[in-house]
């Protein structure tokens, strides 16, 4: 924005002193160049950092944004794009890029166990230390809290400075001549074990010893050494061979060793979703439930909302304002609060709803463990949350229904219900269609409701990945990625891609419906 402000033509500010104006005119180009340079430098810093952090994709994106800013705000011929670019860039970076990126992840094995790059995984293995052979030396704690290593196998006796005098956890050891000092029992070692385990003893020859068990200090050495092509050779002759198709090291028996690194796995996640036993079944169930939930929510919320709007439109009804105010409340209260309130009220053990039902009818429905009841509850709560929106929408559309139609109907002795279906509904339906489709899409992806109210539960039995009977496709995916122990981003990415495709189709249908409506309207006028 600050860059745009300089385009202000000083002519419009006639009150301005002409000298100030001249200075402003003279400084303006420099100011523009200076701010563009600053922006370019900031972007270069970020791009370089992202590249070094091993994020080439994001580095390219940052580069594209940076170069666009410099070009668009640096050259006057792109003047128009200065207005559009910031908004379009935000959409591109935070909607389009994530959609593509997520789909891309669907083709990898990116997950909690395959999250680090190959080099880091290799380093983790190379950092594994084992006790170097024959390096162990028995030790004892002396009464003045030094470590004493008696003569052993021809290696001279050593003694350290008192352990309180360790600097940065390192203790210097010096050769010890003469009589062995007073030493304490193992019990003393046991008491100080935590402190002793942190210590590194520096030997006179430059070697280092760390605690190895209660009686010995030993020096350690890396277990693996790096061979050609990333193969790791173990101290015991075993080998770890990197498998770049699977993204794991394999040991001699062919078993996969964690941690792994992310690699492309082609369509594996997609075939898993569509064909693997234990995943396909719950996926299908969840998909059907998602469609049913979105459709029924749309019907219930729009039905209840329209009905209330029709009643409130009735000319003989008094106190409309106060009714409207109360009816709108569920829409006004933040949804995350109402949903959590219902979570508490429906609680099976101490929820108020079961208390009342129990008191009145002796019923105590298990709202959170019976799949059918949980689904019913979800629809009830969603209807409660959603009808005010439709009440407002329908009220607007009802205004446009011509009054004289009802007069004609009254002459025919038509009742209110017949009036509604014969006159009102056909009139308000066409403009409502795009909104109904949009509402369907919204509920298809109504993840917040499920995550806050039921967290997907109760679980569908016999599945590989935890899948709940109230899970929508979206919440199921969200839980795969962020809540279950596996954190399988690859699988979540694959399902997300399917959801994107479905959503895209709904969005396109909606778009066509809107176009049709617009065409009809312009034809009528």
């Amino acid at each position: 924005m600050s860059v745009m402000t300089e385009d202000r033509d000083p002519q419009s500010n006639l009150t301005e002193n002409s000298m100030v104006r001249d200075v402003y005119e003279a400084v303006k180009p420099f100011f523009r160049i200076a701010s563009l340079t600053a922006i370019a430098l900031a972007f270069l810093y970020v791009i370089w950092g992202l590249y070094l952090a091993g994020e080439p994709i994001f580095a390219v994106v940052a580069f594209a944004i940076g170069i666009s800013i410099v070009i668009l705000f640096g050259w006057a011929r792109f003047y128009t794009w200065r207005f559009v670019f910031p908004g379009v860039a935000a959409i591109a970076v935070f909607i389009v890029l994530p959609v593509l990126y997520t789909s891309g992840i669907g083709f990898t094995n990116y997950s909690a166990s395959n999250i680090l790059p190959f080099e880091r995984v290799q380093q983790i293995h190379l950092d594994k230390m084992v006790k170097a052979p024959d390096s162990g030396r028995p030790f004892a704690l002396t009464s003045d809290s030094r470590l004493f290593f008696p003569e052993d196998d021809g290696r001279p006796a050593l003694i350290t400075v008192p352990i309180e005098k360790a600097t940065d956890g390192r203790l210097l050891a010096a050769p010890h001549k003469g009589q062995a000092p007073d030493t304490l029992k193992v019990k003393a070692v046991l008491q100080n074990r935590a402190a002793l385990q942190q210590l590194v003893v520096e030997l006179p020859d430059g070697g280092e010893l760390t605690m190895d068990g209660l009686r010995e200090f030993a020096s350690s050495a890396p277990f693996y050494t790096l061979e050609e092509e990333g193969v790791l050779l173990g101290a015991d002759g075993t080998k770890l061979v990197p498998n770049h198709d699977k993204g794991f090291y394999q040991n001699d028996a062919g078993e996969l060793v964690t941690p792994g690194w992310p690699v492309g796995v082609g369509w594996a996640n997609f075939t898993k979703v569509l064909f693997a036993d234990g995943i396909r079944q719950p996926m299908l169930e969840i998909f059907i439930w998602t469609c049913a939930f979105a459709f029924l929510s749309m019907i219930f919320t729009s039905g209840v909302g329209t009905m209330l709007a029709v009643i409130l439109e009735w000319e003989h009804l008094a106190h409309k304002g106060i009714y409207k105010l109360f009816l709108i409340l569920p829409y006004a209260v933040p949804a995350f609060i109402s949903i959590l309130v219902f979570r508490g009220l429906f609680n099976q053990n101490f929820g108020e709803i079961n208390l009342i039902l129990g008191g009145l009818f002796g019923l105590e429905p298990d709202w959170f463990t019976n799949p059918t009841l949980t689904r019913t509850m979800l629809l009830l709560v969603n209807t409660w949350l959603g009808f005010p929106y439709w009440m407002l929408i329908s009220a607007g559309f009802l205004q446009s229904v011509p009054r004289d139609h009802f007069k004609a109907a009254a002459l025919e002795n038509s009742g209110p219900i017949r009036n509604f279906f014969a006159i009102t509904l056909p009139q308000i339906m066409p403009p409502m269609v795009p909104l109904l489709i949009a509402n369907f899409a919204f509920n298809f992806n109504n993840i917040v409701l499920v995550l806050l109210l039921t967290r997907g539960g109760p679980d569908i039995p016999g599945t590989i990945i935890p899948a709940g009977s109230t899970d929508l496709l979206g919440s199921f995916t969200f839980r795969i990625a962020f809540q279950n122990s596996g954190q399988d981003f690859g699988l979540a990415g694959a399902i997300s891609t399917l959801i994107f495709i479905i959503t895209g189709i709904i969005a396109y249908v909606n778009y066509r419906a809107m176009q049709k409506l617009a065409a009809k309207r312009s034809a009528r006028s």
Partner: protein
Amino acid sequence: MMVENKRSLFWRKLAAHAFLICFIALILFPFLMVLSISFREGNFSTGSIFPERPTLEHWALALGFEFTRADGTVVQPPYPVLLWLWNSVKISIIASVGILVLSTTSAYAFARMQFKGRVGLLDTLLIVQMFPAALTVIAAYAIFDALGRVVPWLGIDSHPALILSYLSAITLHIWTIKGYFDSVDPALDKAAMIDGATPWQAFRHIFLPLSVPILAVVFVLSFIFLINEYPVASVLLRNTDQMTLAVGARQYLYEQKYLWGDFAAAAILSGLPITVIFLFAQRFLQSDLGDGAVKG
């Protein structure tokens, strides 16, 4: 005027009022329950609508004070509710201002300027706005995780990161504001252009002052949307002190730690101001809802 039988009209009126009152009672039931629960003792207790021994414990805790019970035990507030509310309000206001700036400038270009791909971009916006933000969180997490390693204040668990990702919520607003700009008489900006105004000046001095009402609508709509936003915030914010209300409120009702009474007080305390803002703004919003703001 419609021909109505007087006697049947009376019964129908009675039926309509009875129905509405019953319906509203049903609607208000959760709110009344929560109000009553917030004054009850303990977090599990059950009782009548009017608690026999009302206590202010939950309210004190929600407001961030420690509370001394009758038996002398001192209870600490479990969560920083007011801090969460402040976080939510701060993030929503800043992001809404950002959304307003981005969507107005874009809408102006779409309404008044000719450039390649204008119609295509507009249609794309309509389709893109349907994509659920909640499913792009994996990528959002990856983006800010990477950015955070270069620029720490833009990383995971930072408010600027969340605000930045919220700026993408402009798609619908561009359409709304463009619709309003379309209705501005072209003679106005033509006159300005003839006087030598640049498009920026026409935007700044003609369109902005004229469109204050629609800008207010967009601001309130996006504020309400953002304060309710849960999935993205729950992934980007991890630290209790950084959380927004929508993320934090969920902490109260875990099976292992079920703070029903404390939640009730916190919910009313934090929900009330948002509700009042909405009710106040609602009469301005009503005409705009039909343009596609979807909730519920």
